[in-house]
């Protein structure tokens, strides 16, 4: 399998970007426009591919290098943050001030197995957690900076107008609606998921700082209800991250495996070219 030349790729990309604009209201079914775009070579000495070969999907550039880098860095860092975090949890397996009562927690008083812990003991867990925290924050800031700088936040941020679209998308998934609702790079449910997980990342970092410096950053700790509540939210964020990751990976593998390649190489050839 050879990749198309730079020019072909550029040609394939440009018209799709226009299509991806959510502003075009009565846009024709997005996918149909795509083979036409590919079949139109720019210098044009090559004849258009015969119509007997329309099933070939277009190869499109989906993810910028910075997005891929921060995505995988985040994946590895999150594993380390959670492993070392569970090691730290082992030192005091409750939430709430001494003298109790402790907050509801299915893991109250329970240890986590060695196999999911990083650091070996409390000091090791702490050192790992505090060492990985900076690259974790940095990677998050790089990604957010990318979204803001390129304007890509528009295709990712879940806004009030996405509520009815999310509902339509849900109906489609429940097979109560036949047609896949029109969308830009992401559908409204994806926007909801990715916006939420970004907020969760921000919440994790802020609650982390609230636990790290509860006296120096007393205002931040107070914002989360105090030191023990901040620990509590920080811990729950872990399970939302874990649940998100499981669903995220399952959806990639079951619904759109080509998107895995896109997140590695940047190039997508799959059944949802309308994403681009």
């Amino acid at each position, binding site marked *: *399998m050879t990749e198309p030349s730079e020019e072909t790729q550029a040609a394939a990309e440009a018209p799709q970007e226009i299509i991806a604009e959510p502003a075009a209201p009565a846009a024709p079914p997005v996918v149909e426009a795509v083979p036409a775009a590919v079949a139109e070579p720019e210098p044009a000495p090559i004849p258009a591919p015969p119509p007997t070969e329309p099933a070939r999907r277009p190869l499109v550039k989906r993810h910028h290098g910075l997005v891929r880098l921060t995505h*995988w860095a985040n994946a590895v860092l999150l594993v380390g943050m959670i492993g070392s975090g569970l090691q730290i949890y082992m*030192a005091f397996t409750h939430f709430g001030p001494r003298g109790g009562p402790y907050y509801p927690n299915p893991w109250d008083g329970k240890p986590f197995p060695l196999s999911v812990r990083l*650091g*070996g003991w409390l*000091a090791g867990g*702490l050192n790992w957690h505090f060492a990985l925290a900076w690259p974790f924050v940095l990677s998050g800031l790089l990604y957010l900076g990318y979204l803001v700088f390129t304007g890509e936040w528009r295709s990712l941020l879940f806004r009030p107008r996405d509520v009815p679209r999310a509902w339509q998308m849900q109906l489609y998934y429940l097979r109560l609606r036949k047609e896949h609702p029109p969308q830009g790079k992401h559908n409204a449910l994806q926007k909801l998921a990715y916006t939420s997980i970004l907020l969760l990342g921000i919440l994790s970092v802020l609650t982390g700082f609230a636990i790290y410096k509860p*006296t120096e*950053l007393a205002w931040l700790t107070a914002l989360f209800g105090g030191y023990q509540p901040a620990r509590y939210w920080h811990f729950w964020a872990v399970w939302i991250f874990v649940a998100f990751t499981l669903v995220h990976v399952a959806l990639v593998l079951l619904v759109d495996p080509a998107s895995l390649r896109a997140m590695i190489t940047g190039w997508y050839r799959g059944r949802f070219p309308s994403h681009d």
Partner: protein
Amino acid sequence: MTDDRFPKNLGALSRRDMIRLGLTAGAASLATACGWQGGPLMPAIQGASRLNDWVGEKIFLSSRHLAPQYPHSARTPEGAFPAYSITHPLPQLTDPAGWALEVGGLVRQPTRLTLEMIQAMPRVRYTVKHHCVEGWSAIATWTGASLASVVRLAQPTAAAKYLRFDSFDKGYSNGWDLESAMHPQTILAYAFNDHPLGPAHGAPLRLYSPVKLGYKLTKYLTKITFTAERPGGYWEDQGYPWLGGV
């Protein structure tokens, strides 16, 4: 538009990528497995800990940031306030009357302070939250003399950058930065919840401050030494963060 919802051919590259991803994920989970401490990465992790000490001292720590204070009603029941020591049973003086705090090292006025002298100094009393490195917290009232006034009494030389606190708890000691020592809420405490410090909480005198984690708050004090080099400490030497600032 052909709707093949379940593509059969993912392409060779995509499959190879998946294997690659699997290897990466496998390596990551192996790293986490078995409570791994860090192996060859340990020096880097320790280096990051130094960096965090620097950030904690230069960026987060400020003598103007005072710990929030709580009403008496918020105090943790005394029986629920944990107390740790290295020596078991609890370290206790055989001759409490002969005890005195030695203050020396890089100072112009080496001095020896009895408990009466320390109790005669201006009194600091507050009800604050105690943060343990383990993650628990508890509230108590502490009374003592400001460490800053003892520092002024001893007059450290310009070369003095750190303090070393020694105890009679089997070699337990801590090293502190000068700025944390000068924090207005850092005290040499002789009372816990308005009664004299008991052996569980470091009698006759302990270091206390709401800007440090519990393991930095040396109990059973015997000596304060001003140094130019960063002193180690009982837990710090074993790998715990040196600054321990909160």
